[in-house]
């Protein structure tokens, strides 16, 4: 395409925005509302994801060896566990260290157990993929010197389920919102195009190609998308930084950390801008389609 023609297309697209002021406003509002909702969802989802990851990564299996097992037997057990497929790390803690932990947690009175320590040595096992935790635990349970395997059994699975469901629900909601917005915009633009149907028809009859007719509308869609995403981008950026500044200091627990605003917010902003432009372009292409069949 020639630069001159592109210039014409730009002029046409701006003219059309101005000429259809009311429709332009309606389209921009539709994009803005949708992106505000979608953006909030994304921010929540991403944080939920991060939390889920933290929790997932925190899932570990505690293997207690037989109190009667010799050091060599425990060493052998550790090697066996290390060789299981999907085990990421195995940490050894002696029975003395284990008892110290218990004493620290439950009080000095328990110090008398130091005379005859009832505990066994312990192994802390992490799976490379937390979803394999249950399987690995089961495997370890069959070993000779294993006295006990602990890994928050049902709880972990439940947590995974909750995370999975909320991810899917969120995704479906986001998609539904995007579709609604596209539909709204294509209808809004269609109304403005009906008035221009004659112009398009004449263009086609005097030999305009489809892309020549389409490009101003594509550009118009891009402007609508950009204008429509300004408010949500600003709102979400500011709101998230406020929330982060307020909440983050109070969230000392390692499992519940908010994502740092940078570069997270920039990524969300970029995504929103992209979605806005996509919705705008898609909407205007849908509405111009019918008129190109001349």
């Amino acid at each position, binding site marked *: 395409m*020639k630069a*001159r*023609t592109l210039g*014409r297309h730009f002029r046409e697209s701006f003219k059309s925005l101005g000429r259809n002021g009311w429709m332009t406003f309606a389209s921009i509002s539709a994009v803005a509302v949708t992106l505000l909702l979608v953006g909030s969802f994304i921010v929540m989802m991403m944080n939920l994801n991060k939390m889920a990851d933290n929790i997932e990564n925190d899932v570990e299996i505690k293997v207690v060896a037989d109190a009667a097992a010799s050091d060599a037997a425990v060493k052998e057990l550790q090697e066996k566990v290390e060789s299981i497929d999907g085990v990421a790390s195995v940490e050894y803690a002696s029975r003395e260290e284990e008892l110290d932990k218990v004493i620290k947690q439950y009080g000095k009175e328990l110090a008398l157990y130091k005379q005859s320590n009832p505990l066994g040595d312990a192994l802390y096992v992490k799976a490379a993929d937390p979803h394999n935790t249950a399987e690995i635990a089961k495997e370890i349970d069959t070993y000779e010197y294993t006295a006990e395997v602990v890994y928050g059994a049902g709880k972990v699975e439940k947590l995974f389920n909750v995370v999975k469901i909320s991810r899917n629900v969120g995704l479906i909601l986001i998609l539904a919102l995007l579709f609604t917005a596209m539909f709204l915009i294509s209808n809004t633009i269609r109304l403005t195009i009906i008035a221009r149907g*004659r*112009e398009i*028809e*004449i*263009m*086609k*009859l*005097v*030999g*305009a*190609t*489809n892309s*020549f007719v389409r490009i101003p509308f594509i550009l118009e869609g891009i402007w609508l998308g950009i204008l429509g995403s300004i408010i949500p981008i600003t709102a979400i950026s500011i709101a998230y930084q406020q929330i982060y500044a307020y909440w983050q200091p109070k969230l000392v627990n390692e499992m519940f950390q908010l994502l740092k605003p940078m570069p997270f917010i920039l990524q969300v902003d970029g995504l929103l801008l992209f979605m806005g432009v996509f919705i705008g372009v898609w909407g205007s292409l849908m509405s111009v389609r019918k008129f190109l069949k*001349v």
Partner: protein
Amino acid sequence: MIKMNDVYKKYSNGVVAANGITIDIDRGEFVYVVGPSGAGKSTFIKMMYREESPTSGQIFIDGTDLGSLKNKQIPYLRRQIGVVFQDFKLLPKLSVYENVAFALEVIEETPAEIRKKVTDVLALVGLSQKARMFPNELSGGEQQRVSIARSIVNEPKLVIADEPTGNLDPDTSLGIMNIFEKINNRGTTIIMATHNKDIVNKIRHRVLLVEGGMITRDEYEGEYSYEG
């Protein structure tokens, strides 16, 4: 220039508007298409620039088989054909000059070329003085001339006009015929559907009589007359 081979057109509502048309029109000819209202004249014409496509049969324009034309190629077919529409199809928000220039902008002519061609063609149709006016400020005959100017501004080899003298007084009609004669003398092929008996009988050219979607008479230096 135009060749039709057993062309048949049935609209989606069941109306058969072309019922086996076979015709051969040479380069440089001037052809009137006459016949009663609803006979299929406009349909015959619209199939030439693919506003409508035939249900069956073949159409060749300047050797190109329209049946084998891809959608993408249609604009380039239309650029070779100037069409004067029965309802003018002018854009009300554009001036006379802009309406004519529009046809050249759409095919990406350079601004210098556009200026030159539009100025020339407006002089040819006698509208130089009214270039800045808008369609609703013009008389029917003047609007018709804008429409003609737009159809010929790109110097097409073929000009198709659907009732270009409809609703015009005899003098204005003659004026418009003058323009067509001029471009015909430059070698442009002209197809003109018309109900204007006086003109057809006065300025003699080949006459095709269309009745019930068929060409029932084809005479050089023909007359308008038909029964019914």
